[in-house]
């Protein structure tokens, strides 16, 4: 077992543990903090996949923006959602069964697939990769249309969120 493998298992274990705490902790604030840790673990996993750009984006976007937004929302709504009441629905055992069933199904599919145990990776030039990624996003022959659609989606989401969240009692 190589050092990389050990590192992967450690990171994966921490991430999964954090994720389990995110969905199970009684206090929603704690769940949000555990989410930050889980997202950080995933950023580390991105680094093991040599996707350094996405590792950085993960940290900045997820941890820096989304997690913070969630934390703010939690703080805004904490007054009503007391930490005392049940945090899970009555059907949570059924949810557990469904989730495990889905995992079983996925695992079943993977195990039938021959490429499951591939270990070799193609060669990769990091600096060249980032340049080509950037060019691909704005090249008319490649992904400029999805890129622009995503931009529009973001703008629409931003405006929509502002309109939805605006206090209806204030002009």
């Amino acid at each position, binding site marked *: 077992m190589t050092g990389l493998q050990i590192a992967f298992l450690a990171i994966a274990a921490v991430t999964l543990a954090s994720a389990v705490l995110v969905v199970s902790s009684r206090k929603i604030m704690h769940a949000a903090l555990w989410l930050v840790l889980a997202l950080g673990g995933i950023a580390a996993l991105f680094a093991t996949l040599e996707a350094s750009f996405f590792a950085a984006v993960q940290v900045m976007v997820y941890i820096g923006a989304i997690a913070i937004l969630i934390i703010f929302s939690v703080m805004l709504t904490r007054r009503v959602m007391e930490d005392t009441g049940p945090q899970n629905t009555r059907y949570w055992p059924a949810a557990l069964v*469904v989730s495990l069933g*889905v995992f079983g199904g996925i695992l079943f*599919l993977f195990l039938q697939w021959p490429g499951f145990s591939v270990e070799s990776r193609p060669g990769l030039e990091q600096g060249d990769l980032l340049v080509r990624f950037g060019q691909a996003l704005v090249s008319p022959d490649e992904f400029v249309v999805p890129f622009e659609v995503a931009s529009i989606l973001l703008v629409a989401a931003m405006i929509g969120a502002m309109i939805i969240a605006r206090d209806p009692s204030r002009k």
Partner: protein
Amino acid sequence: MTFETLVWLIPLAPLVAFGLIVLFTHPRRGLSHWTALVGAGVSFLASMILFVRAITTEGLAENPMQVALNWLPTGNTWLKIGALIDPVSAVTLFFVAWTVLMIFIYSVGYHNFGQPVGDHDQPGLPPHGATLREKKGGSRRVPSVEPMYSRFFALISLFAFAMFFLVISDNLLSLYIGWEIMGFCSYMLIGFWYGKKSARDAAVKAFLTTRVGDVFMLLGIVGLYSATGTLNYRAALGDPAVLERLATTDSGVLGLSLAGLLGILLFIGTIGKSAQFPLHIWLPDAMEGPTPVSAMIHAATMVSAGVYLSIRIFPLVSAGWDGGTLTQAMQVMAFIGAFTALFSATIALVQPDIKRVLAYSTISQLGYMIAALGVGAYVAATFHLVTHAFFKALLFLGSGSVIHGMEHGVLHSREEIDPQNMFHMGGLRKKMPFTFWTFLIGGFALSGFPLVTAGFWSKDEILSGAFGGGNLAVFITLALAALLTAFYTMRQITLTFLGEPRSKAAEHAHESRPVMIVPLIVLAFFAVTAGWAGIPQKFPLLGGIIPNWFDEFVGSTLRGEALHTAESYLPLITSLVVSLGGLYLGWRVYRGVQKGHPDPLEKPLGFLYRVFYYKYGIDELYQAVLVKPAVWLAEVFTYRILDRLILDGIVDGIGKGAVWLGMVVRNYFDKPVVNGGGDGLSRGVRRSSEVLRLLQNGRVQYYMVLTLTMVVLAGALITVLFIQSGRLP
């Protein structure tokens, strides 16, 4: 002012007054009667100015004052409307203006202006009187003001407009317009107290009866227009060449010449308007209007229009007459006139109602004029028209004054008697001296009291005209009628004014107000003096002292020829005898009538009395022969058979067929197909949505599970279809 301005001012002033009263002043009684009086006064002044100008103009008959406007384009020519003042219209204008103004003034008093509003008076009913409280306590009954006071003045203003318009017209069409407006006003005024059934019936009767005459008159107008191309008096009736052509053309009807046929058709209009037999029935009933005033309009003014028309068409009627044998149309006129004169005089003999006597007397006197025209004495007819208008107006207003006094007495004594019945009167000469003396003058004028009254001169002229023309039958008939006239006039005067009062009301009657008395005096003046304008030259002693102005003035209007006057004293002696004899007999028979006595004529006349009393049963005859069949035709044939059975049957059949068709479509197409399909569709949608709504429980996590299920199923399907079959790596 110029002739154009003055002549249009005459009809226009009352028309403007009518409009003002109807639109603005009707809530104010005083303002309304002043408006009407000013309108009538303006017309009066303009008429008098024109009259003076007319009599001072040399050769007016040849060159009358006239003005004409283009009115309706008829192809290449214009239908002209215009005004014409020639001697005939000048003298007509004279008496119309005077009588109309007197009516207006008199009406103010007659409708009790200034009296309190009645206790129970309603529009459409005569005023019943008001209770006045006195300072000492107690109360007394006094006459109350007419509820529809302003309306009355509006209507008589419109009436005056129509009459003036008719008189100044220079053609038959605008004469016809004025004629019909007067017919309408007459209808409104007879039915003025529309709350009374008798008034309503009388109004309808008058309207429909005169309508019969008007239809024939319109035929005559149309015929004249198609024959000559004009309706202007001078162009159509004043041109000897045209008259000659009309007189020699055969009309193809009853062997009459065209002139004769058109003359008779137009004359039928006169029969209706001037209440000649057989269309006389409406005039006595017209006395249902506001007592003397409307009656006077119908007796002194409007009916004159009929005679006026006959005078106007006299050239047509007499076309081809050379002074010898009468034309057929003239024979018809002479017969109808003379017959009517005698016929209605007999009816007037026995009527107890003071106004009805005068009504039948009017018919009789109009018959005189028509008869005079029929024998060719048209100047005499015109003369009698003028004098009769004055003295008959006087008599009617006098009778109104009497009735007014009697009504006052009735209010005072609270008796249940008819204030118009002469047998309840008596002795009124002391109570109502002015009314008595003026009525006496009017009555003597009507009887033809010798020398001093106007009626004597005009009636004498008619008699001598009839005698001089050799028409002895007409002469005798008219002389007999004159005797009866004098008799019933004296009967009326005796019963009303002489002797002792025959009721408490008569004891308490009192003189009318000055506003009613002054018109009586004015008219009495003319009832005497109007005759002096036409004293024949050959009359013994008096002839020549005053020139026979009337004969000169009017005589040259219509025909150039001199008229035949009698060379004999027989007509003069006759008229003296019948007048004085009739008056004496009347006084003799009726002077001793006591309260509760029957009419002294009842026994000696016997059966005839009842015939006269019931007016020869002509109303009943018309009822049986004309009205009932017409009602039957309308009710049974037109309504029940034609309308209900046939027309309604067809309409109902179509309706039922459509309903049946609709039921078929409804039951076999609409209900099963359209409704069923629509209902089934919506029912299906409803049922499926009832099931599907269970999915929408509003819980986001439930949706999530559903989504996941679908993804799993889709994934499984993809796996089975593609991966298992090896199409994907």
